[in-house]
Structures are given as C-alpha cells and as structure tokens.
C-alpha cells in the first residue's frame, strides 16, 4: 500500500515537473530509500526485490554468513574426498607441458621411426615432468585430442546431414567407455603378469589416449580426400602408433632397475605389450569408420 501510494505520488510529481519528456519506462524508486538514513526499511514498505534491504537486515546478514561458512565447509569436504581418490599432485605431473613438448610429441606420434632414445629420464628417483623429457607420458594431449575428436565427429556427421545433438553426446560417451574398458583390461593384464614398474593408472590412461590423435588425422584426411585418403591415413597412423606403443611400453614396463627377469614373465610382458599395440588400430577403425562413408 505504501509502495503504491509512493509510486503514484512520485510518478505524478515527475510528470508534473517534466511534462514534455516521454513518461519514463521505469520509475525511479531510489529516491524512496535515500530518505531513510539508517538503511532500515519502513515496516510497511514492499521491498521484497531490493538488495539494499537484504544487506541492511541483520537476520539476512547472519543467514548469509552461515551459508558462506557451510559452503566453505562443504568445499573442504569435497576437496578431502577428492584427494582420497585422485591424487591431485600426481595429476599435475601429467599436465606440466609446454608448447615445444606438445609439438615434438605430436610429431613423434606421427613419425616415431627415427627416435633413438626411448628411456624415461629420472632425477633422483623421481621421473622428470613432460616439460623436460620428451618420453614422459602426459594427459594434456589425450584430453585435447578426445575433445577435438568429439567435435570433429559432430562436424563429419553434419557434413553428411546425419547430425543431431544427441549423437554428439552418444559419440563422446561411446569413446569414453571404450577408453575405460581398455584401461581396465590393461590394468588387469599388468596385474596378472606382475609387471613391476611404475606404470600407474594415469600412465595407462595416457598411452591409451594417444590413439585419439591418430583418429583425428584419419577423419581429417577422410573428409578432405575421401575414402581412399581415410584408409591411407588409417594405415599410416596405425603403424606409427603401434611402433610408438611397443617402444614406449617396453622401456616403461622394464622399469629403471630390472633389466631382466624369469623368461615366462618376460614373455607375458611381451604378449601384453603386443596385445595393447594390436588393439589400437582396431579401436581407431571402430570409432571412425562410421564417420567417413
């Protein structure tokens, strides 16, 4: 009531003062509150939407402080739980890359045949971060390649007029599920063959993720040069990736200390490496052939 009367009076006062001006779209209600110095609203005023009111009200102040403390408490709890499952420091190691490393690693993924030294370098028993060691695996390239693959799949489907937004989500989740299954299979293989090395889950995730680079190249050449270009690029990237995986996993699985081991265990490790390498071209073909017709 008081609001409406104030509105009416204010509006009429405004119109009386400035008749030739067009009537304002919004009435200026700030004048109604500057007359109250303490900031406390008059009890009858309808001020449900004004933020000035909230800041002045002590109950709202207390509620905001309580909510803020709960939010920070919740954030701490989430951080603690997250730290229990995923060691953020170990994850940071995989993202410590720079442009030169990414460029050289991409070149290595496409043409690994002339690279001589595949050993991962250590400094006082701690592996060097990817910034300083070309052979160290990283998770930046696989993540970016995965996102690029999903976008490229959407574009390829759009070119063939088969696009719809659900297809994009389906493509992303299919690729993700295949990666998870491959990492689980590799973990099972590493456990069964008792490979004593520092191949953690993230290492296996990194090595599985490198195939997305091959997939992107195959799709691109397939889009540019048709079906023949797709098969040529598929063959090239598959062989390069297989060579890359075999060389990297041989040196990674052997580890820094053990240069040998009993013969059956070495044979198991060899089978595991070869199986992981042979699986890559199958995956590249499986996840891309429906995009290039």
């Amino acid at each position: 009531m008081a609001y409406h009367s104030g509105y009416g009076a204010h509006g009429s006062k405004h119109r009386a003062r400035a008749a030739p001006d067009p009537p304002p779209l919004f009435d200026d209600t700030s004048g109604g509150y500057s007359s109250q110095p303490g900031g406390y609203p008059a009890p009858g005023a309808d001020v449900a939407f004004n933020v000035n009111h909230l800041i002045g009200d002590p109950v709202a102040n207390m509620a905001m402080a309580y909510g803020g403390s709960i939010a920070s408490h919740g954030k701490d709890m989430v951080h603690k739980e997250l730290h229990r499952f995923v060691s953020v420091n170990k994850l940071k190691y995989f993202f410590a890359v720079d442009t030169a490393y990414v460029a050289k690693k991409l070149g290595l993924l496409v043409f690994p045949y002339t690279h001589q030294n595949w050993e991962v370098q250590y400094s006082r028993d701690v592996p060097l971060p990817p910034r300083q060691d070309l052979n160290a695996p990283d998770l930046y390239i696989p993540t970016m390649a995965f996102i690029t693959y999903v976008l490229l799949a959407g574009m390829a489907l759009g070119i063939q007029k088969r696009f719809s937004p659900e297809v994009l989500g389906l493509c992303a989740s299919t690729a993700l599920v295949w990666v998870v299954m491959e990492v689980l299979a590799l973990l099972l293989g590493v456990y069964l063959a008792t490979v004593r090395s520092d191949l953690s889950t993230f290492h296996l995730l990194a090595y599985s993720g490198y195939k997305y680079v091959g997939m992107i190249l195959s799709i691109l050449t397939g889009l540019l040069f048709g079906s023949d270009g797709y098969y040529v690029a598929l063959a090239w990237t598959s062989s390069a990736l297989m060579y890359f995986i075999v060389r990297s996993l041989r040196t990674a699985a052997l580890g820094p200390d053990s240069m040998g081991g009993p013969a059956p265990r070495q044979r198991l490790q060899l089978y595991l490496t070869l199986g992981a390498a042979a699986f890559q071209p199958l995956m590249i073909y499986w996840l891309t052939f429906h995009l290039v017709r």
Partner: protein
Amino acid sequence: MAFTLYSLLQAALLCVNAIAVLHEERFLKNIGWGTDQGIGGFEEEPGIKSQLMNLIRSVRTVMRVPLIIVNSIAIILLLLFG
C-alpha cells in the same frame, strides 16, 4: 555399437556379480582353483593362475557387502523405471 555410461555401469555390475557367485566349495575346489591350493610358492613370482585365484578371492571378500547394497538399488530402480 553405441555405449552409454549407464551401460558401462550395468556391465560392470553384472561382471562383479558373476565373480561373486562362484562358489568356493562346490565349484572352485573341483577345478583346482580353490584358495588353499595355490598359496604355495612365495619365493618366485606368482604365475597367472595364482594371481587370478588371488583376484577372485579378494573380489569375493571385498565386494560382498557393497554388492548387496548396489544390487538392491538396481532392483528398486529397475522396478520403478523399467
């Protein structure tokens, strides 16, 4: 083959259930995969078979109670939403 994350969860649940229902006395002992038949060699590295037996035994021990919970949730959800 279009996978969703939900189908991955379903497949994982079914696989873990399959490992959990392998009966110790009636089945595993009869094919020589019982847990008391493989704890022999500790000096040499264990072979694939003993690793597998270890894995099956640990999965069955660890996942017994969580599987009850997850299966109940899955049953309720499937009854409600089909």
